Each structure stands twice: as C-alpha cells, then as structure tokens.
C-alpha cells in the first residue's frame, strides 16, 4: 500500500466577517493527497486560498467542513507536529534573536537531542548561507535572509513532511534558485514537500505533481510530465548544424521517418541562467 503523507477530503473553509456577517469562502470542497517522497506544488493567483489551505493543514485554522489527515492522524497531535516543518508566508521569527540563537531555541522546541544541536545548527546555517551572519540580530536581516532563516529552522528539525508557503516570495533569482535547490535536496533525502507559489517557473523546476488553485478549488491536478509534455512531439537540439541546409534535413526526416518538422528555433538561455551565471562570474 502506498503511504499517503497528507490526505485532505472535501475541505471547506469560511472566514467569518465582522460580527459573523458576510462570509468569505476561501477553500471550497477541496480534496488532495500527497504521497511519501513527493514534491507537490500548489499554484494559484493571489487570493486563491493557498495560505488558508496551508494554515488549515498546520492546524492554525480549523476546517468549516471536511477533514485533514497527516500520516493518517490529526495534526492536533504533538507527535504529528514533531514530524512536520512549516514555513509561513510572513516573517514570524523573533527579531531580537540572532540566527544562531533562533536556531538553538527552535532546536530545543523541536526536541533535537542536545549533543546534535551544535552540528545541526552549523550545518543548517551553511546550507542556507547564513553562517557569516549568524551572530547578528535577525532584525538587521534582509527579507531573503529572514526567509532562509525560516528554512534553516525547518532543516534543524529534520521533519518528514515539509510545508512551505510561498518560500521564494520576495527573493532575487539567486535566492530563489537556492531555495529550489534546498527543496530538491529535501526530496533527495526522501522528504515529502508541499509548497505554494504564484510563480510558474518555480513550480516547474522542482515539482513532481502540481495542483492549480482558483477561488478555493483545485481546478487542475496532475503529474508535471502529463500536464506539460505534448503528445507525439519531440524537440531535437543540434550543435554545429548548417542552418542553410534546413530543407535537406526536413526531406530526410520526412522520407526516412515520416516525421514533419514543426518549428526550427535557435536555442536560447533563460534570463535566469544568464543572470545567475553573470553574478557568479563576478563573485569569483
């Protein structure tokens, strides 16, 4: 039997307005399950209910209807919370503590054995690139640094299930690339990841499966490959090809393979790659 890390069934969430009037329907009959070891991306425009869904999963909000099971159990159980790491959308860490103090504090709250605390904290600081700044109070951190400290807080806990609400919001391309790499690292170590984003490229890079959310509903779900790969269409990348002989190539392909050339383009780098390469070159 395949183990489901997260099972959400017919979830509904209303927010009550002032005085119980004018309810807002933020999550609408939503069902979702995430398998062990999977990276699941929730994609949706602002206000589609991603944050509400994550808070419901974490037990910060209570469902109006429906149910949520994590590792087959309720998130209210402390033994379940122990296995989940959560990065909220907003900054939420004490601003008077340094990164090192914050992580020490969270290691204590997460029951990290005392003798492991030091190495785990140092490792996490290196992974998120905050080692140099570890002694500074976090009120002096940039938005990206605070975000990375939030991630480090999850890493020291070493949870089985990681829930990230817009982990790359407000970060520059390098910062968000690093976070994507951290997510892939988690996946490699067999962790299950659920994260939300409103940026398409982000989801594309790291997810196994995605769900598109709109007005509180999951309107499309599926494996990335199923969703993005066109049927019966392949692209061929050539090096050292003489573009003047394009029609010759087309003829060969037609004759020997009965394949029709749909388009011929020059390969392009993404702007993100150019940006990251440039910055890296200047850094070294």
């Amino acid at each position, binding site marked *: 039997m395949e183990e489901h890390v997260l099972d959400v069934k017919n979830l509904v969430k209303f927010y009550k307005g002032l005085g119980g009037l004018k309810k807002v329907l933020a999550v609408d009959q939503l069902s979702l399950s995430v398998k062990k070891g999977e990276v699941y991306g929730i994609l949706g425009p602002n206000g589609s209910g991603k944050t509400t869904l994550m*808070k419901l999963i*974490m037990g*910060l909000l209570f469902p109006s209807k429906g149910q949520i099971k994590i590792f087959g159990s309720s998130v209210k159980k402390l033994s379940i919370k122990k296995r*989940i790491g959560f990065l*909220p959308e907003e900054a*939420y860490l004490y601003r008077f503590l340094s990164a090192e103090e914050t992580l020490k504090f969270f290691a*204590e*709250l997460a029951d990290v054995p005392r003798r492991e605390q030091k190495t785990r904290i140092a490792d996490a600081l290196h992974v998120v690139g905050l080692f140099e700044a570890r002694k500074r109070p976090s009120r002096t951190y940039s938005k990206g640094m605070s975000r990375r400290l939030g991630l480090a*807080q999850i890493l020291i*806990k070493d949870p089985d299930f990681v829930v990230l609400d817009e982990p790359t919001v407000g970060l520059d391309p390098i910062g968000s690339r690093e976070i994507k790499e951290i997510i892939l690292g988690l996946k490699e170590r067999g962790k299950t990841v659920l994260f939300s984003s409103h940026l398409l490229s982000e989801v594309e890079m790291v997810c196994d499966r995605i769900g598109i959310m709109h007005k509180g509903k999951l309107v499309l779900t599926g494996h990335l490959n199923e969703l993005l790969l066109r049927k019966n269409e392949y692209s061929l990348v050539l090096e050292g090809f003489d573009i003047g002989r394009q029609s010759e190539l087309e003829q060969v392909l037609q004759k020997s393979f009965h394949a029709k050339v749909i388009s011929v383009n020059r390969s392009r780098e993404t702007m993100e790659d150019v940006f990251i390469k440039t910055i890296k070159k200047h850094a070294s």
Partner: protein
Amino acid sequence: MILSRKTFSLARITSLEIIRLNLFWVLAAFSGIIVIFTKTFSVYSTNIQINMVQDIGLVLIAGVNTFLVVILVAWILPREVENKTIYGFFTQSVRKVDYVAGKFFGFAFILFLMTFFLSFLLFVYVWLSFDVRAYHIFTVALFSYIANVILLSITILSSTVLTGSVNIFFGLFVYMMGSFNQSLEYLVERSMEIPLLKAGLITVLKIIPDFDRLNIRDEVLAGIPIHWEELWSYSMGSLLLYGGVCLITAGIVFSRREF
C-alpha cells in the same frame, strides 16, 4: 506536567526579549536614581526621613513592576499573535500550556530581577545613610511582587483575546479596581440603588484580587502589627488560585482559537 524543558526554553527567551529592550534598562536606571536621591527631597528630621525614603522607594518598586506588567507585557503578548511569531510555536510540538507557562515564568523572572535589584539598592542606601538595616524592605517588596505576579497572570489571560492597546487599558482597570477594592466595595454597598447592578459590581470586585491587602507598606513603616499567618495564606492562596485559573484558561482559549 506544566513545567517541561520547553517551558524553560520559552521562559528564557521571554526574559531575554525584555532584557534586550532599552526601555527595561532605562526604567531600572531611572528607578535606581530616584531611590538614591529621595533623601534630598525631604527636609524633615532624620526619623521622618528614614520613613520617607523607604516609603517612596517601596512605592516605586511596586509601581515600576506594575508598569512592566500593565504596559510592557500587556503590549508584547498580543503582538505575538499579530506578528505571527506564535506560528513558530503552535506548529511545533509545543503545547499551548507550555507556551503560556513559558511566558508567565519568563515575565515573572523579569519582575523578580527588577524587584530584587531595587529593594537591594534601597536596603543598602538606607543602611549607608541612616545606619539602619531595614530588612522589612524585602518583606514589603516580596508581597508587592506577589501582587504583580497575580496581575501578570490576569494580563496573560486577557492577552489571549484582546489587542495590545485594549489590553493595556484592561490591565490598568484591573490594577485600579484591585488596589481600591475595599473602598470601592464599601462605596457600592452604600450608594448603589439598583439591586441588580449592585450585586453585579460587588461580584466583579470580589473576583478581582484585593491588591490592597498585599500592600503592607503603611503598616510596616508605621509599626502596626500584621497578622502574618493570614497574610501568607491569603497571598499564597491568591497566587495559586489566580495563577492556576488564568494560565489554564489561557491555554484552553489558545487551543480553541484560530490564528
């Protein structure tokens, strides 16, 4: 059990937050200076001076700590919810009671530091100025500390539902009602005409702790005998009752509310 290792971690960080606030040090320095300079305010004979210095000093010790509770704690706690720092705890395997107890002990420790520091200063100052070892300074300060810790537990409870500024007013209100408890009760008893309102007000006054009873400054300085046994049982009883009820209720409120 309420006291877990996590409660201790939370308490430590809670105290640290206050200690890293400039306001805390300004208050401590300011109060310290007033304690030391009270003698210059008075032009009376030495005997009256000794009492004046102690009187002002002890009022200050109780007052500064009440200020810490009613202004600082009442402001900081609701902001934990508004700033979402609370997410960091309630998505960990931290019980709501651990959190509430951690906050309580963290702030109680700060009040203890402030009370002890200022009473020690006052004691040394009285000793050096008048060659009198007024050990009763510590006794009076201890009971004012107990009163402030009771106020602290009430403030922690109100923080679970009120916003910062409302909470400050609520804390002040409880403090005032508690300080003039008996006179207010007397006044209501005498002047209220509407029976229902009267019964209501009397009940409120009975629920609010009687801080005046824990204020033994006048009696001690005037040499009026005190029923120690009664005072001890009243103060310890109130501390356990208000502390216990408020902290447990705060824990329950937190586990029922959304964030």
